């Protein structure tokens, strides 16, 4: 009879290698039970640790945000006081404390640019723009840096990017930026592009505003006097006695050749700047010396014509005096022709026809041009007026 060995603990028959299968299973289950419990506890600790760490990190972040604001305030006051190095240092600290707030990097770029450190400012802005390509503020500042650096292509690129990035709610700011862009384009003599931008502005600026006045001036500078007149009329419609608008409207009318309107505007305005006074005097000369003006008597027409020819002849004689060698055939012929015309119309009984007057004006133009080639263009107002009169009537074509 074989003896079956049994476990002393539980009485179960031992297996062939002398181990109790039930006790082994119990130990194993305890171990499995334990490792699950420990793992569960560790996960619980991890969860609690996560929540605690997140709370601490959040509080820390708030501290950084407050510190950043404090440094930003210091930067603003230092910049206002002109302490630029201190402002730069404070701006850098604000950025270090809170790099996510773009205001601080923009402020840093501004103060670097104010310190003539455009290269560093550009790097700050490019870094900002690489994170947010649609950041209008960064693009605008980069455009200004490019303008200072005379990099026209870059400036155009950044201005367009800035204009495209503004939100619809930022329309007033976008209009200002567009005006700035137009100034740049006109400085670059890019009139066509400038006109295109001005047309856009015409549709967005509020009526009667001073911005319309600036718009009109820019149209004038771009060579579109007609649109300029419209803009000034827009302002005058809302503010009939706006001195600046009246003066500008006079300039626009002058550019269009509407000297009568120009005189009305110049008379109404109270602006006494040198260019306005000069234009007003010139307009007066034009209106009082135009022999082809309507509703003037024959005597007055004759007087104006002979006065114009006389002034041209005086100019020719002055030129010949300064340069006797210029007494060539053309000049001699002009002088002879002028003397003949003067004699013809010197008689009180003479009644020049319109053709005669036009012929006389053409002679004046030829004299003025010949003198300009020989002795330089005259700068006296009467000669400017004579040329403008000829131009107004289409008599300034070269023969």
């Amino acid at each position, binding site marked *: 009879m074989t003896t079956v060995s049994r476990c002393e603990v539980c009485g*179960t028959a031992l297996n062939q290698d002398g181990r109790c299968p039930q006790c082994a299973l119990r130990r*194993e289950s305890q171990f499995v039970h334990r*490792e699950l419990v420990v793992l569960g506890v*560790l996960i619980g600790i*991890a969860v609690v640790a996560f929540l605690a760490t997140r709370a601490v*990190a959040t509080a820390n972040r708030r501290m*950084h945000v407050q510190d950043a604001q404090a*440094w930003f305030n210091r930067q603003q006051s230092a910049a206002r006081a002109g302490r630029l190095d201190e402002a730069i240092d404070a701006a850098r600290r604000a950025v270090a404390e809170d790099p996510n707030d773009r205001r601080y990097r923009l402020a840093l770029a501004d103060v670097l640019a104010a310190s003539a450190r455009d290269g*560093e400012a550009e790097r700050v802005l490019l870094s900002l723009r690489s994170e947010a390509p649609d950041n209008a503020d960064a693009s605008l500042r980069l455009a200004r840096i490019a303008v200072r650096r005379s990099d026209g292509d870059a400036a155009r690129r950044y201005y367009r990017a800035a204009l495209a990035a503004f939100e619809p709610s930022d329309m007033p700011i976008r209009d200002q930026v567009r005006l700035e862009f137009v100034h740049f384009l006109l400085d670059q003599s890019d009139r066509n592009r400038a006109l295109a931008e001005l047309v856009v502005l015409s549709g967005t600026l509020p009526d009667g505003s001073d911005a319309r006045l600036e718009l009109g001036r820019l149209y004038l500078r771009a060579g579109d006097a007609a649109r300029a007149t419209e803009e000034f009329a827009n302002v005058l419609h809302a503010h009939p006695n706006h001195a600046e608008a009246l003066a500008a409207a006079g300039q626009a009318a002058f550019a269009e050749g509407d000297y009568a309107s120009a005189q009305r505007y110049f008379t109404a305005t109270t602006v006494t700047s040198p260019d306005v006074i000069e234009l007003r005097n010139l307009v007066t000369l034009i209106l009082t010396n135009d022999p082809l003006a309507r509703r003037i008597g024959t005597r007055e027409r004759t007087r104006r014509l002979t006065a114009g020819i006389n002034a041209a002849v005086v100019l020719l004689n002055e030129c010949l005096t300064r340069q006797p060698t210029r007494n060539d055939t053309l000049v001699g012929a002009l002088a002879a022709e002028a003397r003949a015309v003067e004699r013809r119309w010197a008689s009180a009984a003479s009644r020049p026809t319109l053709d005669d007057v036009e012929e006389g004006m053409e002679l004046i133009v030829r004299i003025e041009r010949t003198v300009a080639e020989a002795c330089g263009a005259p700068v006296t107002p009467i000669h400017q007026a004579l040329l403008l009169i000829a131009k107004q009537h289409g008599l300034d074509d070269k023969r």
Partner: protein
Amino acid sequence: MIRRFPSIQQLRLREHQLFLALSIVVGILGGLSAVLFATGIERVSRALFGLDPSATRLFLVPTVVSVITGVLLAYVFPDVRGSGVPQTEAAFHLHGGRIPARVPLGKFVTGVLCIGSGHSMGREGPSVQIGAGIASLVARWVRLSPERMKELVPIGAAGALSAAFNTPVAAVIFALEEIIGDMNATLLGSTVVASVASVIVERSILGNEPLFRVPTYHLVHPAEVAAYALLGIVGGVASLVFCTLLLRLRALFARLPARTRALQPAIGGVLIGAVLVLVPEVKGVGYEYVDLALNGGLVLKTLLLLFTVKLVATVVSYASGNAGGIFAPSLFIGAMVGGALGTAVHAIAPFPTGEPGAYALVGMGALFAGIIRAPMTSVFMIFEITQDYQILVPLMVANLLSFSISRRYQPTPVYHALLAQDGIRLPQAESAS
């Protein structure tokens, strides 16, 4: 009658499944500890220095705090001086991964105090030791086998480093390259899992902000490779200077009487306080100035000054026995020397060159490779920081040269040399570099 538990067999976790689960938990805990450590340093620094400290405060804070930490490091937490990386390596290779519980706690407390009070040291090395210590603690609690406990240590280290730098790949590479010393380690999978878990947790708390905001740099002209090679040579020399000074000054402190052990960190504190009065930029980790150098915001004179002072300050802080690492100072010094060389090259080179910030970036990697002797980690770390391939070629060139020069004239890596000074010899580890 004994109850049978047939269902328990079905539920039993295989050892490797448990290990994987623990890797995730350890990675998460390591990551949280790194975040808490960095946050703690910032809070302490802010509390001690205020927003804009005066010269008096700059001197007194490290001086006074170092007296306290000196006592803690001498009598309460004697195993937590210095970086923590060499101690972690020693625990892994010599002590079966056993790290006493007071080590991560002590490292946390003294690290926060030392770095927060202005010592020129890094937080990544201490994070590695804290993460490794947590892993060791967990392993003992779960009663893992000795082999598994040892293996969990570098996993915890990788988890912590992943969160500290926000560079999960570099953290894995570092654990394999430096701590284990074997790039073919079988722990790759678990290390990756821990690193990923850690960085997920870290980013869910801190967001996905990069450590440095770096412009996109690239090689501007093929001849620039020569300039970057020069940077590698300069970086190698700078690495040698740093390591030599560190080891010699540390040996000098070690020769002082044992009764001065509690005072030595305070001596370092006084010296650091004096330095901070003159050059406060070298206070603590200094990443904001690294960021400036990477973005070309420092002039040549400042770059050279910060390079010199930071090197000296770090050597003093570390050698005097304070708790903190040399990762961050390596990056700082590298950025400054790179930026300085880049500024000079940009001014005088006959061919087009990149911005000085590009050289600062490569300089960081070169010094890291030369000092830490982890070139693979350096490459991956810089790549993860910049997320840009284009700087990798010059980075690898500079890294290789810096590493080669450093190894040629100082065969023993600095971490091993530091251990050797404490009478600890690690087994020779094959490095994949």
